[in-house]
């Protein structure tokens, strides 16, 4: 009799508290993060949206709602040009980091069989970050300049007779600089995904008769797509918000949305800065959402 009673009771007793306590604990664990995000991410963004509708005069800004800053932004060639430049440079840098990064990741993640060596190689990719941003950008100047190393060498071996001027202080130098800085963010996630591919899966494809390029297209590329998407998100978010590289390497010829925001804030034009900020945030959101569409990360990771 007692046996029956206890065996009947125990599951109820143990099951009930655990299901009851679960939501409490979840809420407790999430609270700090949620609070932090609300306070320092969501609130400032809402504030920025709000400020973009304030009235801006030359010397002060008033909380009277108006569409004037928005109209100015979308009817000005300068601002629209900056938006277009931002998108163009983002697309080019995204393509070039992928072009440079994917083969590097392929080598590190797939062809280097030794795990320690591949980790060491990944660390090598991070070496540029051991110097400060400013030094790295400055180092490009004697490299790309009119009398810089590249021009000198090309002239010496007689490939060119005139120094190539577009190397520095142009869109090209900004693209070269950004590719160099952000490439590692592409290599990392892709190498990680490639490293997770079971070598016997590739051997199986080989055994079934597929050539290297077939295996690459049908097995390796699809299995590394989540890495490409994560890398692309990293690079996109960083490049879209860039202002420092273009300021340092373009000689103010290339104006990105980021540079617009910096100048507007510098001259206390908060409403304009906020409009540019909102546009940039929406752009980033759209890009990230589109990239997430490409691969179902939840399923793949």
């Amino acid at each position, binding site marked *: 009799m007692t046996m029956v009673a206890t065996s009947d009771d125990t599951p109820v007793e143990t099951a009930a508290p655990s299901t009851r306590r679960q939501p409490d604990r979840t809420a407790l664990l999430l609270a700090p993060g949620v609070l932090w995000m609300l306070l320092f991410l969501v609130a400032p963004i809402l504030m920025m949206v709000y400020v973009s509708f304030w009235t801006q005069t030359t010397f002060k800004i008033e909380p009277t709602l108006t569409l004037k800053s928005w109209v100015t932004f979308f009817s000005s060639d300068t601002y629209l040009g900056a938006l277009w430049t931002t998108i163009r440079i983002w697309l080019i840098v995204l393509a070039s980091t992928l072009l440079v990064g994917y083969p590097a990741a392929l080598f590190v993640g797939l062809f280097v069989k030794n795990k320690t060596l591949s980790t060491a190689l990944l660390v090598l990719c991070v070496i540029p970050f051991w110097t400060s941003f400013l030094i790295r950008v400055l180092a490009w100047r004697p490299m790309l300049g009119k009398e810089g190393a590249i021009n000198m060498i090309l002239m010496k071996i007689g490939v060119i007779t005139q120094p190539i001027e577009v190397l520095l202080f142009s869109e090209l130098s900004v693209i070269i600089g950004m590719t160099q800085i952000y490439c590692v963010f592409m290599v990392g996630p892709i190498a990680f995904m490639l490293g997770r591919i*079971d070598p*016997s*899966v590739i*051997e*199986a*494809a*080989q*055994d*079934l*008769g*597929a*050539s290297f390029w*077939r*295996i690459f297209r*049908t*097995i390796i590329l*699809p*299995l590394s797509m989540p890495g490409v998407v994560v890398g692309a998100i990293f690079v996109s978010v960083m490049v879209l918000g860039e202002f420092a590289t273009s300021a340092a390497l373009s000689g103010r010829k290339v104006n990105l949305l980021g540079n617009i925001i910096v100048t507007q804030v510098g001259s206390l034009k908060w409403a304009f800065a906020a409009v540019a900020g909102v546009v940039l945030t929406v752009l980033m959101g759209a890009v990230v959402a589109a990239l997430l569409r490409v691969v179902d990360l939840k399923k793949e990771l």
Partner: protein
Amino acid sequence: MRDKSWPELVGIQVKSVLQLKNVHKAFSGVPALAGVDAALPENSYISLLGPSGSGKTTLLRVIAGFEQPDGGEILFAGQRIDGVPPHERGIGFVFQNFALFPHLSVAENIAFGLENRAVDPVTDTRVVAAKVRDIIGLVGLSGLEGRAVTQISGGQKQRVALARTLVTEPSMVLLDEPLGALDANLRTRMRGELRTIRERCGVTFLHVTGSETEALAMGDTVLVLDRGRIAQSADAGTLYGRPASADVARFLNCYNIFSGAISDDAFESPVGRLALGGAQQKSGEPAYAIRYDRVAIRPLHASAAGDEVRIEASFVASEYSGAAINSFFTLDDGRVFEVETHLSHAAPETFEEKARYALVWKREDALVFV
């Protein structure tokens, strides 16, 4: 329907499908294969038995072409294939961990080889679909075609791996511990299925296993690999009854083995003189082997008949294994001696722990290696 079309499609009429001649392979100086010689008959099931680290996987990888041998010859259907890349060999490989393509469905996995092989790919999707449908029926996967391979059971993955290889119509299939990842029940069932599938395809299967029961149950021919060499190649009955050396007998896990030396009419073992009388077998190291199920347990006072060998030992424990009971004894030198009694022959006796018994067998039942 299959058994007719397969050999025709494969188009090979050679008796010995694969020949290995003195195949060597070392990893950084340590030999994994030390001169493997073998000839595998066409259209048969061959099991390759060997303890862990004996070089089974290495041998399969060398045959498949994933590793290059350091020396020796591999002839496949009469042609030398060492140096030929894996995909041009016409040899299918089923991996121990299945190695399915994780992003493809069951049907896509199976169709992969047909669609993507460099030599003679099948471009007509209807032909591919028909072949895939046939093979899915053959291995018993109907209804799972669209399933992701991450969402099927171990046994089903095994079948996908097999189907994926079979659909490309290889002339030979290598299976590396194909049942190793399955639970005991499924393993027994898959044994029968693998044999049936092979018979329907009519190609040679080379099945690697570390389990002697699996090797004996499945192989028409059993190869025993020991320290990188083929120690014996025989049918299951011969192997079980007449192992070629003490080492092979040890892998079979059904012999008590004594080392020692032959003198006149007896074998000098650590537990005393064992009278000779049975078969003698040439092998490198002298040893005396008696099968677990050839030994009778008698009370200590019982004496042996003229044609019998008798030793004494103390009882330790016994263990039921279905139709038989295995009793364990310790000999005077501390070694364990095992006796298997079939319950159909005698009702289970109970023995007293630590008590001494006489263990008796017929002289001619013992195998003596000289």
